[in-house]
């Protein structure tokens, strides 16, 4: 187990390093630079040069990269060119909202998806199965901004149950979490159904049934527990999707999270903020997937890491 952990940690570091190179390359390759944004239309050639020097953008690209990484390793992700806040400060300010949003979405998506998937598998080829799969398909394919506006119009504007936008505690995150979690629920429902159908065909299920196991025990104890491994893998992978989805959801619901921060940072070419955020998000996704891998051993004792 410890050698496995060591190997995984090593690959995680390599992956984060790879991501940092990629992010750095992309942000410097796209047209537009922060100096032009800051100085706008009224810049002179001297003021552009002076600001580039002040921000360190006049240095060779490799020097910029290594100096950035040297500081990043020490926990300093730099200071925003635009706002003057440190990137760590910006992340710490906004992470609670995005983290809550991701957590509630995962909880909503997993519970809804597993229930729909189980119903579809147990009631295979019935109207319930077809209805469940249509719902799953809608969840996967409906665009986030459309779902968000639909939910706002119905539950906030017409029925006045939830606030329309902004952050004011758990209650204000319910609609955003549903918006973000619907896609996850759809994917999980489909995966749960197919995984359950594989398990239901197994001999041990027939044996359990022959021994008189009740339907509740048969479904949840014998079938779902064995079918859950691919579903858990999918939940881990959905974390990346949620980070991307948060960009749209936070914009529509005016939530001050990481998603809305990255949108404004990209449009202003705020290099330290974009780099810092992408690096942070990549690290989070890698860590979540690592935790998911470790969870397998708890869910299925037959799985051992040597």
């Amino acid at each position: 187990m410890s050698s496995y952990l060591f190997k995984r940690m090593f690959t995680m570091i390599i992956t984060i390093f790879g991501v940092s190179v990629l992010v750095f390359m992309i942000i410097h390759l796209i047209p537009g630079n922060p100096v032009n944004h800051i100085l706008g239309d009224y810049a002179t050639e001297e003021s552009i040069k002076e600001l580039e020097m002040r921000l360190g953008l006049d240095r060779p690209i490799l020097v910029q990269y290594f100096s950035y990484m040297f500081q990043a390793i020490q926990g300093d992700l730099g200071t925003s060119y635009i706002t003057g806040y440190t990137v760590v400060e910006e992340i710490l300010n906004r992470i609670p909202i995005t983290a809550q949003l991701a957590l509630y979405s995962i909880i909503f998506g997993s519970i809804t998806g597993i229930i729909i998937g189980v119903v579809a598998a147990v009631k295979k080829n019935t109207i319930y199965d077809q209805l469940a799969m249509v719902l799953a398909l809608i969840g996967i394919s409906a665009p986030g901004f459309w779902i968000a506006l639909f939910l706002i119009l119905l539950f906030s504007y017409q029925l006045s149950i939830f606030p329309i936008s902004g952050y004011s505690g758990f209650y204000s995150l319910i609609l955003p979490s549903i918006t973000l979690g619907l896609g996850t629920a759809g994917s999980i429902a489909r995966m749960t159904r197919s995984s359950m159908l594989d398990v239901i065909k197994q001999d041990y299920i027939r044996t359990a049934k022959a021994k008189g196991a009740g339907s509740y025990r048969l479904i949840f104890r014998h079938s779902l527990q064995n079918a859950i491994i691919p579903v858990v893998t999918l939940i881990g992978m959905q974390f990346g999707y949620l980070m991307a989805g948060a960009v749209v959801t936070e914009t529509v619901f005016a939530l001050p999270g990481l998603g809305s921060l990255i949108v404004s940072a990209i449009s202003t070419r705020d290099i330290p903020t974009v780099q810092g955020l992408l690096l942070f998000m990549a690290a989070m996704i890698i860590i979540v997937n690592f935790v998911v891998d470790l969870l397998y051993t708890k869910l299925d004792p037959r799985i051992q890491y040597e």
Partner: protein
Amino acid sequence: MNRKRFVVFMMFIDFLLIVSGCNRSKETDANKGKDREVVVGLVSEPDSVDIHRTSSTGEANIPLYDTLLKLDNDGNIVPNLITDYEVIGDGKEVIFNLKEDAVFHSGKPVNAEAVKLSFERLISSSPFSTNAGDIDSIEVLSDYSFKITWKDQFAPFFINATTPFLAPLDVSVLNGEGEGFEKNPSGSGPLKLVKINRGDSLVYEPYKDFNWESQKPGFDSVKFRFIPDEETRILEFKKGNVDVLLNVPYQYIEDLEKDSEVTIKRVQSDTLSYLGWNNKQPIFQDVKVRQALALAIDRESIIDNTLNGEAQAVFGPLPKTVFGYSEKIETMARDKYTRDIDAAKKLLAEAGWNETNKDGVVMKDGKEFSVELWVDDDPANQRAAQVIQNQLMEIGVKINIAVKESATIIEQTPKGVHEMLLWSYGWPDADVLNFLLFGKDKSKRLHYENEKIYSILDKAAIEMDQEDRSKLYEEAQEMLVEESPFIPLYVKENVTAIRNFESFDVHPINNTIEWTSVKVKE
């Protein structure tokens, strides 16, 4: 999962629901806010509240600052923090006198020393330091009097001093590195910052020591909420959670006007939208081609089809609200460039574009007149680009629309890699013709070269007599109308929707909320 665990899990879900119920009641109370709270809905958050750092001034950071001079409702420069000034000799030196009762939010007086320190920080750290001109020295003459000496005369200083970029701020709140204003700002404007909720809102209270023009402030607090999504912003206003909606999207105005509780305020913007091109490209070298393009444009059709009629057509280089505007020039340009397709086709033919291919595109030496038009991702601008595309096609000019991010257009156009662009500019003084549009080595987007115009604009920038200065700009504009290096199109109406106010004014020239006039309905 056994039955016991399942029950525990369901209890957890119940707990979450109960918590959510509690939060809801809290939220409802919070929404009530203070009795006379004004909630303003804005699209985006300013980069910074520090005027020496930000590139985006707007309603959410402007009220922190009081300006040295100000514009009255007719656009005249009048005293504000500066009561009077005296131009000495050839105009390189000016003595300014400050009023003696102005106080920063920190409680310190706005005196000559504070203004000097503020200018020094502006010059050393602001990207907009050029707005102060090339300052040689600032001398404190007494507590409330100071002298600025420029290396060359700088006539635009007085109009620039009406903008918050040159407004004094209290540098004593800064730390050793000259930073920290972001978290502890101190200007002398009508609103004092109470709280920054990054990404969400800025909360202000009326500053008690501000000159409220013999009245008490008509509100207790102001919250600027940043709601980037258009639909969400409108719904918040319709629901009553937002009292002031700035920059109302044009498609919603009609709907809001039907609501008897809502008042719509319209103020003409000082930002001129124009159709420009890279004048260095061979295709635009012939003045007849440039004039033909101008004659093919129907501004009213663009305004009606893309902005629901909420804009004013402009034919001359400067809009009405800008110093240097001339009614004579506007009329002249209108007479010359009111849409005339036959005249435009004739001019194109005279310029050698007299063949037409099977698609109806004019050709010269076997090459068709086809150019790429850059436009940003604003939906209204994209619709305008489509109307322009159709209008120019009527004279056989083919336009290929390319949508680009603003950051890309800002970076790429000074390099001259573009052909045509739909863009805008906004500045309260005609010096914008010099430092942005047509000055020597300053024509970043239009790349226009004309020695005569350079010389007139340079003279105007150092002419301290405003009447003579105005005449010089008129001369320059007359040449620009004839040369047609770009096509001015329109200035949009800035539309603000308000609800529950006894009084609420927006400044007719600089488009900002006049906080001294704001009074919430009791």
